């Protein structure tokens, strides 16, 4: 400390020697800055929760946003929402990383004469647009939006109509064009019906990744978990048909890999058997499609699909033996002939009598609205031909999310004036002349209609982080400036007014509007149940397409471009949490990869991690190979989401954009074809994968255990226990010694006067593996709750990832045997006899009297003995100072650190950290109860992972409470087990074995 610094410190601490040197308050002078005026609804130190809507995908889940001191710090599902009922996926959990993203456009930008963006004032920007709009005729103005079912959509339509401009083009890369087309042909309605996965005891999915990204994944995961998971001797059965095993398919009881793009034929074959054998009460109008079904007899279908006749017959019998549901339309059916697959699944549902039961029209799902790839393709033609003078783009990134051969970016350059409302400098915004950043969804007023009758609201939960403006307000301001009839169209002074006017029309009751409005805001929206609409086979149902994907010949393989469960279509790519989230299937992070079957890889001389040149008729990309047994031998796959040219520091120039390989021409149904024929060439370059995963086989360790429904039904029969040799029971005398030791420990604690042991809870967790799908929402929730830093690709390669909770994924079988995937969430097991505790030389790792294995950061000196001694490898060491902006591994660039949870310590370099069972929530609840005088109830403390788990697989609670759910699960003698229990660690986490419902 130099003299000047000393005087400075002295100055502020007042010179009192005792004060200057006492306590923790010495040299860092902190300021306390009170509000000028106390904000409503807010008490410093306590969280305020606001209801809003997740806009990370078109599913429209409800949010509760936790706000501390005016800042959103965490989002959790809104329990009132009929869609997600309190749960969220990884992408939803990462919404705050969009809000505080350091790469957001911080103020309006205009392209200067030198071609670079320069700041511009809002007034000047609006004046420039007005001038342009006054100078061109309306028919040369185009507007591209993402899916905005609600007030914004109608505002844009009215605004464009007033201008005399063309109707807006909605573009979502997943627009479900094939579904709408097929539903129109088969049922005469192009809406998307509601599928009830909970009521279906038998689910047959033709490529629909209904728990990854398809339609409404959180809702469907909950329903699937309800309908499928094991419960007192009963469970559903799920068969997945797709050449690639997606994350959803990992939960299947049976995976059938047909020839790529032949799912439709298989569905028709199953329908054929049902009608032929009258396995269900087939509706009489099925006669309309009799010839269609006749053509698809099992023998010919078997020839097309490569699925045996016996399997087809069996599927038909299984499908009709229970209440069932067939779904098609996920990425497995996103090829040129996808409408044929969806149509076939529709017919299958119809002949089995599912329409009106598990498939209902009425409460139609609206993902992606009227999105159409074909209309974007025709816009490109117009732009290239110079027919577009002014182009507005909002909520879509077509320059990235269309095949490179479409030439969207190049065509944009032919447009005189391009305005982007993007929050990021994405690939489309980089081509714009003006970038007018919109508010983040957490900063704006808006509404959304994810399905007929469900209207959800968004409200600003905090002041905008940057100088952004809501696009609705910008459009209204422009209308006012344009004057004349355009201005006269709108009476609303602001977008909020416009929104409220719409909600006044939505109100059905006679209460004063502000009462209705306040209640809707608090609830998160308004839900009504529209009546069910009966549908029949349409007259033209017999004319459905029957095509299949043309199998490539020779050395060519079929490439599937599928949406990444974490990054979706790429919109999540600039969120470090999502980049660092190991892909649920491959466990790879921060990059693109090519999935290839090990057999094919061997044939082509390709090893894991080698860089492969993948060439289609359109482009070539180079990407590292990942050997994946869950993909058919003639198929390879690359996830979407990476390969942005711009977008931000996390996404830009990372991996490859698989869409580059695809054909630009729209398919017959107006969508984008996600299949293409490719050839591979091994460059022999090598890039090690950034993955936290070790072996993908359990090597007999019995970590993720499973059993079958049949074995549970007949426990008396000897079933082959695959891991029996490792699950050797602990000898009785050892058990006794351990019990005595544990008792002695509690006695000692009590004698020390520290703890009243009998009154204390014993915290424990139980995880039902028959529910867990491996979706990894819990992992991201854990990052958000516990201030876990992301480390980046380079450090992930060195296995320096910090995730306290990981999803382990193991393969069983494969080759000639059916491939089975097991997933297991692994976090600190809070062992009763923890190996980490006795080896800590400074007592930083110790056991609390309420059963937690605690880690005291300020004691930890970083010997890492605890981690070395932990058999579960769930302790993570801070090799870097992730919260220090001068450190190379700094993880929280301004303003990303605003999302840090104030209740959790930010760890510094040199300390060990790990899962705490969300101790901050336990202590917070205990303090709360101390004030209210109430006693702890089961379910009062909910850790972040349990809170968000869409499948409800995780249960946390007090083992000492005889009525607690966790106690019931922990004592489940049928399926309960401890991972590596034979090591005598006595974990507080009990796993319930996965159950497979194999074919009879």
């Amino acid at each position, binding site marked *: 400390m130099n003299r000047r610094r000393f005087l400075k410190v002295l100055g502020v601490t007042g010179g009192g020697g005792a004060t200057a040197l006492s306590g923790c308050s010495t040299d860092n*002078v902190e*300021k306390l800055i009170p509000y*000028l005026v106390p904000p409503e609804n807010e008490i410093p*130190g306590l969280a305020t929760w606001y209801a809003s809507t997740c806009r990370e995908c078109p599913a429209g889940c409800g949010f509760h946003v936790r706000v501390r001191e005016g800042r959103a710090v965490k989002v959790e599902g809104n329990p009132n929402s009929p869609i997600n009922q309190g749960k969220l996926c990884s992408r939803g959990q990462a919404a705050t990383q969009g809000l505080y993203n350091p790469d957001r456009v911080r103020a309006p930008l205009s392209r200067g004469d030198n071609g670079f963006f320069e700041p511009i004032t809002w007034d000047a920007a609006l004046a420039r647009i007005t001038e342009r709009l006054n100078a061109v005729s309306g028919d040369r103005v185009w507007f591209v939006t993402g899916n905005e079912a609600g007030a914004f959509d109608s505002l844009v339509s009215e605004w464009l109509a007033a201008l005399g401009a063309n109707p807006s083009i909605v573009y979502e890369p997943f627009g479900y064009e094939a579904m709408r087309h097929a539903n129109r042909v088969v049922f005469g309605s192009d809406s998307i019906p509601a599928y009830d996965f909970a009521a279906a005891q038998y689910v047959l999915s033709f490529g629909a990744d209904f728990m990854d990204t398809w339609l409404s994944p959180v809702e469907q995961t909950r329903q699937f978990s309800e309908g499928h998971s094991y419960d007192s001797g009963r469970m559903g059965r799920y068969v997945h048909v797709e050449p690639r095993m997606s994350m959803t398919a990992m939960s299947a009881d049976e995976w059938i890999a047909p020839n790529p793009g032949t799912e439709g034929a298989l569905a028709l074959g199953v329908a054929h058997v049902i009608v032929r054998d009258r396995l269900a009460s087939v509706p009489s109008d099925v006669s309309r499609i009799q010839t269609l079904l006749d053509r698809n007899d099992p023998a010919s279908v078997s020839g097309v699909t490569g699925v045996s006749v016996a399997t087809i017959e069996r599927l038909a019998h299984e499908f009709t033996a229970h209440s069932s549901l067939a779904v098609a339309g996920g990425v497995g059916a996103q090829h040129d002939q996808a409408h044929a697959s969806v149509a076939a699944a529709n017919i299958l549902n119809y002949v089995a009598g599912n329409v009106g039961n598990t498939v209902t029209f009425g409460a139609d799902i609206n993902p992606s609205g009227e999105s159409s790839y074909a209309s974007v393709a025709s816009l490109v033609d117009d732009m290239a031909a110079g027919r577009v003078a002014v182009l507005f783009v909002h909520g879509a990134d077509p320059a990235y999310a269309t095949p490179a051969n479409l030439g969207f970016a190049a065509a944009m350059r032919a447009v005189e004036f391009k305005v982007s409302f993007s929050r990021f400098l994405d690939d489309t915004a980089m081509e714009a002349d003006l970038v007018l950043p919109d508010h983040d969804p957490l900063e704006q007023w808006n509404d959304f209609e994810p399905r007929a009758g469900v209207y959800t609201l968004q409200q600003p939960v905090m002041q905008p982080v940057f100088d952004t403006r809501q696009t609705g307000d910008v459009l209204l301001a422009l209308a006012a400036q344009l004057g004349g009839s355009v201005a006269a169209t709108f009476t609303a002074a602001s977008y909020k007014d416009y929104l409220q006017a719409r909600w006044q029309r939505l109100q059905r009751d006679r209460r004063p509007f502000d009462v209705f409005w306040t209640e809707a805001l*608090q609830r998160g929206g308004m839900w009504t149940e529209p009546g069910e609409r009966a549908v029949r086979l349409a007259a033209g149902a017999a004319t459905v397409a029957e095509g299949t994907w043309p199998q490539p010949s020779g050395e060519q393989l079929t490439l599937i471009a599928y949406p990444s469960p974490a990054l979706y279509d790429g919109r999540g790519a600039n969120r470090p949490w999502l980049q660092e989230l190991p892909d649920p299937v491959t466990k790879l992070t921060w990059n693109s990869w090519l999935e290839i079957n090990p057999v094919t890889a061997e044939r082509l001389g390709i090893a894991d991690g080698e860089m492969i040149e993948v060439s289609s008729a359109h482009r070539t990309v180079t990407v590292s190979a990942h050997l994946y047994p869950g993909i058919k031998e003639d198929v390879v796959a690359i996830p979407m989401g990476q390969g942005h040219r711009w977008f931000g520091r996390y996404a830009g120039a990372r991996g490859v954009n698989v869409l580059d390989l695809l054909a630009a021409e729209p398919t017959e149904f107006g969508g984008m074809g996600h299949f293409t024929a490719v050839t591979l060439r091994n460059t022999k370059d090598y890039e090690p994968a950034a993955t936290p995963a070790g072996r993908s086989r359990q090597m007999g360790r019995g970590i993720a255990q499973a059993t079958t429904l049949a074995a549970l039904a007949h426990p008396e029969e000897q079933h082959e226990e695959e891991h029996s040799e490792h699950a050797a029971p602990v000898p009785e005398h050892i058990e006794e010694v351990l019990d005595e030791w544990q008792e002695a420990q509690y006695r000692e604690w009590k004698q020390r006067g520290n703890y009243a042991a009998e009154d204390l809870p014993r915290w424990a967790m139980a995880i039902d593996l028959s529910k867990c799908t491996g979706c990894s929402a819990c992992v991201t929730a854990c990052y958000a709750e516990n201030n876990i830093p992301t480390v980046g690709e380079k450090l992930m390669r060195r296995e320096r990832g910090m995730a306290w909770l990981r999803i382990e994924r193991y393969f069983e079988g494969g080759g000639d045997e059916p491939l089975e995937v097991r997933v297991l969430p692994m976090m600190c097991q809070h062992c009763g006899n923890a190996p980490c505790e006795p080896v800590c030389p400074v007592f930083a790792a110790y056991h609390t009297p309420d059963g937690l294995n605690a880690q005291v950061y300020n004691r930890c000196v970083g010997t890492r003995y605890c981690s070395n001694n932990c058999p579960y490898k769930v302790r993570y060491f801070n090799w870097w100072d992730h919260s220090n902006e001068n450190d190379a591994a700094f993880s929280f660039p301004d303003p990303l650190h605003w999302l840090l949870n104030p209740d959790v310590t930010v760890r510094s370099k040199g300390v060990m950290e790990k899962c705490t069972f969300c101790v901050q929530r336990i202590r917070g609840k205990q303090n709360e109860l101390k004030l209210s005088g109430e006693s702890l109830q089961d379910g009062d403390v909910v850790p972040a992972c349990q809170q968000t788990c869409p499948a409800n697989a995780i249960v946390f609670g007090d083992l000492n409470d005889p009525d607690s759910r966790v106690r019931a699960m922990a004592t489940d003698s049928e399926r309960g087990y401890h991972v590596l229990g034979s090591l005598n660690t006595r974990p507080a986490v009990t796993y319930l074995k996965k159950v497979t419902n194999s074919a009879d």
Partner: protein
Amino acid sequence: MDPAGPEPPVAHKGIMTRHAILLAGSLATVSVLAFVIATASGKAQGTPQATTAADTAFEAPEITDTASLEGPRQPIFFRHDVHAGQYLIDCQYCHVNTEVSPKPGIPTVSSCMNCHLVAGTGIAEVDSLRAYDRDGREIEWVEVHDLAQFVHFPHEVHVNAEEEFELVCEDCHGQVDRMAQIYQFGALKMGWCLDCHKEKSEQFDTVVSTDCSVCHY
């Protein structure tokens, strides 16, 4: 808390500087600028230096040499001995959240102005306060009680422990109603915390937890 507020938050700025947020891992620091014992309500009866009814005649001294005062110099020379000592204003009149929030907080400028819109005209420091209010500037108080960010101190639980454990504000904050300038009274070190926890355990024959994970997480 209600799951959803009826209206969005009104315009405001964050309570801490960005710098402070980064350093402190947001608001993990439990910090108090000042705490005064509620003399008027008789909360402090029984402690040796407590103000009694006879002391209501206490008159805060005139101070000419502020340099000799203990504690950091603040942007406004706010005198707790005048407010809490001489005028017997209950501490929770200004520190409103002490009973409900883990973070006691310090009064907003607007709550100062409740009185000083009228009271105190002619006093230089009150003029200074009014200038802050008029210009809409925040007052940047220097933090006196600063805990490390790896310690979690639930202020509300301690304030509410008065009946059960005879714990009063003065035990930690000292005789605030006699302080012309606030200084740190308690050591705020772990031993100091534990001494009290053990003492109260013995005194009331119960368990006041000394488990690490009650505060460190």
